[in-house]
Every structure is written in C-alpha cells, then in structure tokens.
C-alpha cells in the first residue's frame, strides 16, 4: 500500500480530515503522520530554516525534516493548509520546495476550505499514487503496436489512434452525453486512421469521464489527467529527458505540472475560476463576434496594455472588455487583453506552486489560441512550446501508456 505523509494545518478543524482519508482510501493509499519529538519542533528553525507563530505549521515543517532524513517513512507527501492563510501559504510552498530539493519523494500541495471533498482531492491523490506505483510505466518513451486513447474532458472529448509511435487518426467532439461523445470521437479517430475497432490492441482513457467511459469500452488503462498529460506533452514536444513544465488551461480547470524525465514531480490543479479558463476566451470571442479559432490570430496583432482590465472575473472581466470596446478600443487589443488576463491569472495563482523549468510546454485546446502562449511567454520570459496535436495531449498520453501495459 502506498503511504502518503500528510503534512497539514487546519484540516481537522476545517472538518475535512475524513474527506482526505476517503480520497486516500479510494486510490489505495494510506495516510501516515511521521513521528516527531517536541525537540524537533522547537529546533525547526535550525533544521528547516524558519519557525512561525502557528504551532501546527511548525509541526508540519518538523515532519518534512523527518521525511527528508528518513525517506523510507513515506512514498509520497501531501502538504495541505487553509485557503486564504498567508502564513500557511508561505510555509506550504517552502515545505514543498524543501522536500523537492532534498529528496526524490513526489509532493502535492493544496489549499482547502470546509467545502473540499474527497472528489476534489481524488484526481490529485490518484496522480500522486500513480507516480509512485507506476514509475516504470511512466518512464516509457515509445508507443508500440496499434492502440487508442480517449480524453473525456469537461468541454471536449478527444481521441487518437496510434501505430508504432505515430498518431494516425484523431477525433474531436464537444462533450455532451459523455458516452456518446466518447464513441463519436473514437469513431472519428478510427475512420481517419482507416482501422476497425476490433484491430485496436488496447484503449487508454483519461479525463473527467474516464471511469464511465473506461468501463463502457472495457479500457485497459483508466488514468487521471496529470500523469497522462505529462506523458503526452513531453512525448509530442520531444522533451522526454530532463525537466519540463506542462501548462494545460482547460475548459473547466487548469493544470501546471513540473515534469522530470516524463514523470510529474510537483503539480497544481485548479479550479481557480472560470475567468482563468477556456470558457472566458470563448465568451470574449463571442463578444467580439468571431469564432474561437480566430481569437488567437487576432490577439497576436493587439496590445493588452491598451485595454483597462479591472478584474479577472468571468463576469466583471468580460464587463471590462465590453467597456473597452464601447470606448473605442480595437478588437485586436481586446482579444489580446482577454488572453493576457487568463495567462496572468494562471501565472499568479498556479505557477507559483510549481518549479517552472524550461522547456515550457502548453497543451490542450486553448494552447491553439495563439495569443495565450504568447501572453504566457511574456509573463514567464521564456519560449513556450506548443507541440503538434497539442489538443490531443491526453489521448496521446493514454495511447502511449496503454501500449506499455500490453507489453507487460
């Protein structure tokens, strides 16, 4: 059983400890709490580098030190503190960095509220367990045979068919009925590849609808998006060795993943708000009277600084865009302002949680909106790679990983 060390402050008093345990149990993991002495807590400044006024945070730091000194105590670490606590936010980030720098143990950090449920934590925990359990499979660099992948996302469903390390068919449909959308996308990929369903040796499924779809089509691999997308991203960007950062701004949530040799090291997944998602860009395109596929090219001609954005919010941010248009701002400036707003919010609220190491790979459908990678490049001051088939990243990762299972 995978042992996840829980280093936290406030989870019992927020009433969510049971939810954390339920999520761990669902993914076949057990939560552990490394023993520390009072001396360890009193000396935390000497061993960790800082002590703070909150006792539970000092306890979490002392436990981090203990794990680094005795890596056999846990297979993975989850660092959790209350949302909106400044002291905890600083220490949560420092604990993650400390463990990352001093050990090879995968770390996940998360800020919770009383509304955090096991379901919210499930994908994150599943990814944490997968990185420990299937390290060998995740190290796989080549797809072999004839396999398929389906990414049942919140907004769109994508599918690919791969043969001997190459994508030979793709399918893409908006997600409506989960099963029907998956079947349609898969059908599209099969048709383009010119192969029959029966010829496919194995199917891997990821995304929100993975459990339902996976069961329905008898998938050999049902896997969360963090590990699958990491794999797909480094495969398509040809960055399988060394470090990389994967940014996926999705229709409903965003992922920022720090990858080492194709395996996720640290990651964040939000949920920040609709203002930092593909939905915001869809709304901006609609308001500009253009198709979403035209927004990116239009944005490349614009300058976000000509538009006063007063809010990141889906509603109030859109209001800023509308006001700018009524004041005579150019549509291209408004398009770029929308892209910059999304990128900036992800940069401010998510990328602080992971080590941003080059190359930076942007994936998912939003990465094809050219203004968005450009805005991210400006914010990060590094070149952003958008690989071919960027929107099929999850499906490609699933097709690649399932081929490894077939060989095993």
């Amino acid at each position, binding site marked *: 059983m995978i042992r996840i060390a829980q280093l936290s*402050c*406030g*989870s*019992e*008093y*927020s*009433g*969510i*400890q*049971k939810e954390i345990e339920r999520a761990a149990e669902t993914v076949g993991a057990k939560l552990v709490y490394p023993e520390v002495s*009072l001396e360890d*807590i*009193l000396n935390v400044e000497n061993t960790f580098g800082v002590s*703070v*006024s*909150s*006792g*539970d945070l*000092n*306890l979490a730091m002392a436990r981090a030190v203990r794990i680094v000194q005795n890596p056999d105590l846990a297979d993975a670490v989850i660092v959790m*503190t*209350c*949302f*909106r*606590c400044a*002291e*905890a936010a600083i220490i949560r980030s420092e604990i993650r960095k400390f463990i990352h720098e001093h050990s090879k143990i995968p770390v996940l950090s998360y800020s*919770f*509220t*009383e*509304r955090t449920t096991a379901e919210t934590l499930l994908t994150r925990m599943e990814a944490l367990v997968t990185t420990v359990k299937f390290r060998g499979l995740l190290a796989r660099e080549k797809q072999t045979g004839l396999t398929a992948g389906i990414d049942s996302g919140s907004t769109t469903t994508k599918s690919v068919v791969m043969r001997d390390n190459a994508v030979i068919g793709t399918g893409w449909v908006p997600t409506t009925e989960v099963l029907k959308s998956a079947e349609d996308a898969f059908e599209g990929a099969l048709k383009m590849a010119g192969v029959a369903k029966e010829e496919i040796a194995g199917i891997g499924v990821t995304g929100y609808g993975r459990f339902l779809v996976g069961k329905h089509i008898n998938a050999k691999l049902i896997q969360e998006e963090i590990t699958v997308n990491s794999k797909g991203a480094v495969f398509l960007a040809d960055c399988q060795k060394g470090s990389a950062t994967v940014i996926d701004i999705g229709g409903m949530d965003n992922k920022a993943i720090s990858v080492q040799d194709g395996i996720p090291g640290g990651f964040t997944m939000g949920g920040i708000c609709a203002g930092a998602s593909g939905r915001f860009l869809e709304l901006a395109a609609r308001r500009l009277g253009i198709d979403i596929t035209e927004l990116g090219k239009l944005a490349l001609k614009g300058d976000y600084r000509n538009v006063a954005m007063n809010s990141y919010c889906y509603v109030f941010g859109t209001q800023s865009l509308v006001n700018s248009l009524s004041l005579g701002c150019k549509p291209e400036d408004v398009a770029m302002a929308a892209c910059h707003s999304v990128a900036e919010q992800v940069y401010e609220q998510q990328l602080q949680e992971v080590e941003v190491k080059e190359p930076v790979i942007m994936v998912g459908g939003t990465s094809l909106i050219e203004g968005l990678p450009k805005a991210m490049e400006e914010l990060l001051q590094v070149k952003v790679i958008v690989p071919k088939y960027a929107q099929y990243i999850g499906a490609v990762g699933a097709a690649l990983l399932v081929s490894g299972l077939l060989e095993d």
Partner: protein
Amino acid sequence: MAKVIVYPPTSMILSDLVERMGHKALVVPEAVRNLVTANNIQSPPLNVTPEGPKKGLRYAAVDVPSGVRGRMSLIGPIIEESEAAIIVEDPGWLTGCSGCSRTNELVRLLIRTKGVPVLDLSYPTNDAEAKVFVQKIKAFLGGLK
C-alpha cells in the same frame, strides 16, 4: 463558582489551577470531548465536521481561513460562556496552543472585548517567577464570586 476561560485555551496547567480554586475552567479539550463522545462520530479524530467552520462564521468572516473558523466553533462558545479570564502572554508550546496563531489572536481579542475581569500574566521563566505566577492566579480566582 465562576466560569473562567484560560489562554492558551488548551492549557492543562491553567485549567488545573482554576479547578483547584473551586471554579469551572473553560477549555478546548472539554469542548472536543463533548464532540468525540457524541453518539455520532462523523469526522475523526476531533469530530469537527464541515458544519464547524460555518458555525465559526459567528466569530469571523467568510474570508477568514476555514481552520480558524473551525477552531472558533469550539472556542467561541466558551468565550461567550466565560465570566472571567486568565491570559498568559508568550506561553510557548509547552503550555498548549490552538495550533493556529490567527486563532490565538482572535481568541485574545474576543476575551478582552467581552468585558469580563481579565488577569494578564507573563509566562514564568524561573522558580521565583513561577511562585509569583501561581500566587497572582490564586489571588485573582479568590476574588471571583
């Protein structure tokens, strides 16, 4: 007999002194005991459920972290019930704490704004100070009805 809240609200030393002087000590462990001995254990180990932070909204706004509000759902009612208070400044970890510094600050504020008699003390650092510490508590508690 007076109901006396102590700060830190988990201090067993202070609680013991209050009880020895014939008063009722209001402390967090008792509030937790009430929760965990309830018939329905919903959320071990403390049995604070997501309802706790919502109850804590009585003492802190929604933008205050859930952990603070959850703690306040236990400590807040004790403050409301209190008729006197003993506050020890800079007590250190050994005396007990709520685990959260923001909660500690809010607890001290609410005790002071309640307007009950408060004994302010510094944590003793040697035997002589400890004797004075106990004597002051004894005198304070002796003066309560």
